[in-house]
């Protein structure tokens, strides 16, 4: 087995085993913490398709994360109150329906944002994605129907057939399952024809066009897929906290997702998982020691960027090789 595959497997097993061990020791809070890791990792798996494979530094993925969160919150609140929403649809508290709605909503939003943003590149792309995300953020703040600035509570977590999602352990397993599915999708994508074209567009856009592959449709597809995965993570995040607010849409969230990926290893399959784990553990552990934990996070990020470009995965598994 290749070294990176072995490391990936160990990481996944550790992520799966930790809540069981914590549960046995009566540390229920740790289960929630690991659930947070899995959800943030899922969001970053989405962003990693655009950022890691496609080289598209989207500073607006909070828009899709929040869209997913609001999809969960809005559907749940309608299912609770019985008030019909669009087209007489009465909302839903079923996770598969919520995820589908989250993915479709983010897909539409990202198609519009991507079609415009992808005409630019570099710093302009970063800025324009940020600008779009801020527009969505302020829209959510000024929309009183769903809580506006105060956000929207989800009284009961959305349900999954055959699972009691209010139990931390069972909710974790749902999140882990979705993360695993997204990782498998991401692994297939990166080795497919589409993945080859996407990675080549990142390396040399002009040359790829000169062999007859148009870069724009490739990038737009990657951007939309990326947004849809991040939106499903947003729906789960809203369920985890049983609360969704505009803060899920803020640029801090976009920045956090980028930080996760850089810490874990940009473009690496398991980079998001390693990054999310490191980030949440640091947040919890350093946050317990000092209120200024983000200062130390900044230091770690600085060291990573200067001395360990490949992030955690790069340190453990070495440089990536392509066939």
């Amino acid at each position: 087995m290749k070294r990176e595959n072995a490391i990936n497997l160990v990481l996944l097993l550790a992520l799966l085993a930790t809540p069981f061990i914590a549960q046995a020791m009566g540390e229920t809070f740790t289960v929630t913490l690991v659930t947070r890791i899995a959800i943030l990792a899922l969001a970053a798996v989405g962003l990693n398709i655009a950022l890691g494979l496609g080289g598209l530094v989207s500073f607006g993925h909070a828009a899709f994360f929040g869209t997913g969160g609001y999809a969960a919150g809005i559907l749940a609140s309608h299912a609770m109150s019985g008030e019909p929403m669009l087209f007489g649809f009465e909302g839903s508290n079923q996770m598969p329906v919520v995820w589908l709605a989250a993915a479709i909503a983010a897909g539409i939003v990202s198609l519009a944002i991507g079609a415009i943003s992808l005409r630019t590149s570099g710093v302009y792309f970063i800025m324009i994605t940020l600008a779009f995300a801020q527009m969505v953020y302020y829209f959510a703040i000024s929309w009183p129907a769903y809580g506006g600035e105060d956000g929207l509570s989800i009284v009961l977590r959305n349900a999954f057939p055959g699972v009691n999602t209010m139990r931390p352990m069972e909710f974790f397993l749902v999140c882990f399952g979705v993360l695993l599915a997204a990782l498998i999708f991401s692994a297939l994508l990166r080795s497919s024809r589409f993945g080859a074209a996407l990675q080549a567009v990142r390396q040399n856009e002009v040359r790829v066009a000169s062999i007859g592959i148009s870069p724009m449709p490739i990038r737009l597809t990657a951007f939309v897929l990326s947004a849809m995965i991040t939106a499903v993570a947003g729906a789960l995040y809203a369920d985890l906290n049983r609360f969704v607010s505009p803060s899920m849409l803020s640029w801090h969230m976009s920045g956090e997702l980028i930080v996760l990926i850089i810490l874990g290893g940009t473009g690496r399959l398991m980079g998001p998982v390693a990054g999310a784990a490191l980030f949440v553990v640091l947040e919890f552990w350093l946050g317990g020691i000092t209120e200024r934990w983000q200062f130390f996070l900044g230091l770690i990020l600085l060291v990573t960027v200067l001395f360990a470009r490949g992030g955690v995965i790069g340190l453990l598994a070495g440089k990536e090789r392509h066939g």
Partner: protein
Amino acid sequence: MAEPVLAIRDLRKSFGALKATDGVSIDLYPGEIHALIGPNGAGKSTLIHQICGTLRQDSGQIRLAGQEIGHRTVAERARLGLGRTFQISSLAGEFSALRNVMLAVQAGQGSSFRFFKPVMRDRALTEAAMERLERVGLAARAHVPASELSHGEKRQLEIAIALALDVKAFLLDEPMAGMGPEGSKVLTGFLDRLRQEAPILLVEHDMDAVFALADRISVLVYGRVIATGTVDEIRNDPAVRTAYLGDHA
């Protein structure tokens, strides 16, 4: 004479007052190597950019196999059979030589929107790519990242990529640049065989290579073609001698 594969008619492009391309007409016939030479600043690059589509001409036509391509995108021109190889940059430096060629095979098949099948297990891609690498003599280096290939090997890789694209006309931009004498000799021999695949429009500084390979030469000076002819005609053209060859001839 046969129909030209690539026909450029009265092409014009100005940047402000500078006429970078000033009514250029060039024909490329089946089986020939047509060299384009000219001093620095003559407008060779501008012309190449217009042919491959990275610059849009002000007026004039570019026809490939009878089809007007002057208003198509770079990718569309490539799909119609215009093969360009580059001076410096690799297609995808992080990918192995094999994967670079596989990408070209994939582009030729016009099917980049497949999301699940791993390319390395796609025999249609790997075998076609390997065959191209063998033809340019790069099979032994198939799994080396393109960025780690030597200068000459990168050039061979470029040719393998062009071979994978079912090219109707090649546009070679200074293929000899940066090659040692030995490498140039090998490449000269190879280009001689390549012309049987498709005719070549060759932009080159290496005069020995041009005189050894070219069937016809066009001389570009200040955006105009001042002469087109066989090697001997160009060597003996007084206008060319003063404008360009000078101490060479």
